[in-house]
């Protein structure tokens, strides 16, 4: 009886392992192809392992003429601006809703939640008209204004949990010991919130860094492309219908790897966060 049970478990484990391989295959294939020379990659027989590969695809992408560096600069500027503003604004908002009880608090919380439900994809036209009206198409400021507004709600919601997790008593104790309210906050609460700020920051980073749809609407000139837009252009067939797959995959790896690393840092919070409250009751 137990033997049959463990045999079934072993077969199941092998099957799940096969599913894992299948799921990871596209990612593996991206990396594998990025190391192959143009003749190897266009051979009829696929090359399954990257042994004897070449770095040439990467040097072609990183070479100035591909536009990668320019797109990287644009992405960095937009992400940095959006991130800094978003974290500061969201942090202040989170403080207000988790440390104070005030008239309008409930409406603010409700607005934060409802705004997240507005389908961004249904607002592009309006956002495009607004940014075009302000003459801010193809600028860092123009798109950042929209990104900040899109990421703030979730960031407030996430930070609110972290702020609530630091007991207000700690602050009050410091105030009894002679700190001002502001001093108590800066010396006691703020350091304890650092992990929360990092987590929300990484989350906002991923959102903005990856964003494709709005960028494709607001950043139409070649010079203002962000990395996702650059990769799209880079991956489209040339006028002769040719695609340098090795280089496209090297570009994809360069775009994906930083995100994957950051993602692995925060992912735990994203799943357990969503589910944590739902079952406990």
């Amino acid at each position: 009886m137990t033997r049959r049970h463990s045999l079934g478990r072993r077969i199941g484990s092998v099957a799940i392992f096969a599913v894992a391989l299948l799921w990871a295959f596209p990612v593996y294939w991206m990396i594998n192809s990025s190391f192959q020379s143009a003749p190897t990659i266009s051979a009829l027989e696929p090359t399954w392992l990257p042994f004897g590969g070449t770095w040439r695809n990467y040097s072609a992408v990183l070479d100035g003429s591909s536009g990668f560096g320019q797109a990287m600069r644009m992405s960095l500027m937009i992400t940095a601006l959006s991130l800094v503003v978003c974290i500061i604004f969201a942090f202040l908002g989170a403080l207000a809703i988790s440390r104070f009880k005030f008239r309008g608090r409930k409406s603010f919380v409700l607005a934060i939640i409802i705004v997240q439900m507005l389908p961004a994809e249904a607002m592009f036209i309006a956002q495009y008209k607004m940014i075009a009206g302000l003459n801010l198409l193809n600028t860092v400021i123009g798109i950042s204004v929209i990104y900040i507004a899109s990421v703030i709600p979730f960031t407030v919601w996430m930070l609110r949990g972290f702020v609530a997790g630091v007991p207000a008593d700690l602050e009050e104790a410091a105030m009894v010991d002679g700190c001002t309210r502001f001093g108590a906050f800066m010396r006691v609460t703020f350091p304890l919130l650092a992990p929360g700020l990092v987590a929300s920051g990484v989350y906002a980073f991923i959102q903005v860094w990856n964003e494709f749809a709005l960028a494709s609407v607001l950043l139409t000139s070649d010079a203002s492309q962000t990395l996702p837009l650059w990769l799209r252009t880079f991956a489209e067939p040339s006028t002769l219908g040719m695609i340098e797959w090795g280089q496209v995959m090297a570009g994809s790896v360069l775009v994906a790897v930083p995100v994957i690393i950051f993602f692995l840092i925060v992912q735990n919070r994203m799943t357990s966060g969503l589910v944590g409250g739902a079952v406990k009751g």
Partner: protein
Amino acid sequence: MTSPATAPAVVDAPTPRSDAPRATKPRSVRALPYLLVTPAVLALLVGLGYPLYWQVTNSFKEYGLAQQFGQAPEWVGLANYVELLTGSQFWAVLLKSVAFMAVTALVTMALGIGLALAMKAVNRWARLSLQVAMLLAWAMPIVAQMTVWNWLIDSRNGVLNYVLSLIPGVDMIGHNWLVNPWSFFAVASVIITWAAVPFVALSVYAGLTQVSGEVTEAAQLDGASGFQMLRRITLPIIRPILVILLLLQMIWDLRVYAQIELLQGFGAAGDKYDLLGTYIYGLGIGQGHFGVAAAAAMIVMVFTIGLSWFYVRELLKEDN
């Protein structure tokens, strides 16, 4: 934003009410929370509030040839909505989008739940390998996902056609998967499912680990079979998570824009391959019919907010 990582995390710490303002507090302290929320509120008003206002009002206005020469758009009441809802094209795109959403969301949920249950039943090394594989797929930026899949299904050198052609009697080399609209949407659906299943599977698995061992043991002692335990005990306990996940999948799959846009760029342009997102984009920014596009966007918005309402209710419960 479109990434499946946008699931709002519900952090379960309760809101402390300990320092509620007392009547004796000075005015400056009472003003403090308002000062704190002001920057966030202003940012939301500029980035989302104004566009929303523009969209609502402009869905009642006409943008025609005259407006391209600088005339102010004319107020036309419900004409844009009537035009959309009486024409056949909007309905066709809407139906296609809803069907696409239904199939993709259901397949994603079924695979996600199935894999989560399987993860509980198998050995540690198998579970770990699946978790790692899923995290990799989940973390991929959308554009990178699409370039990789476009390479996998490439007609000449793609691995998919090569592997299929290994089957005796099948020759798929040279087959373009993006030409036939059915095949185009199937490809889109597979890619979206591949990227979305990890979120569902890992969330459901996290939920399953919270089902207490005592309950399942008791059921086992009472002689429940594996299937009975699943149907009568496990699934009812994790039901709240399943409802939230299904709603999120439906909302995300209805709104899908980037994947369709990219696939069209890679191989197949034309209205045959449109879903709501690309259709509205084409109407507005493509053809300059901003009024009709705004009306179409409003219909989609009302539809998604309707779907989201249950989700919002769940989140509000968390706040109290």
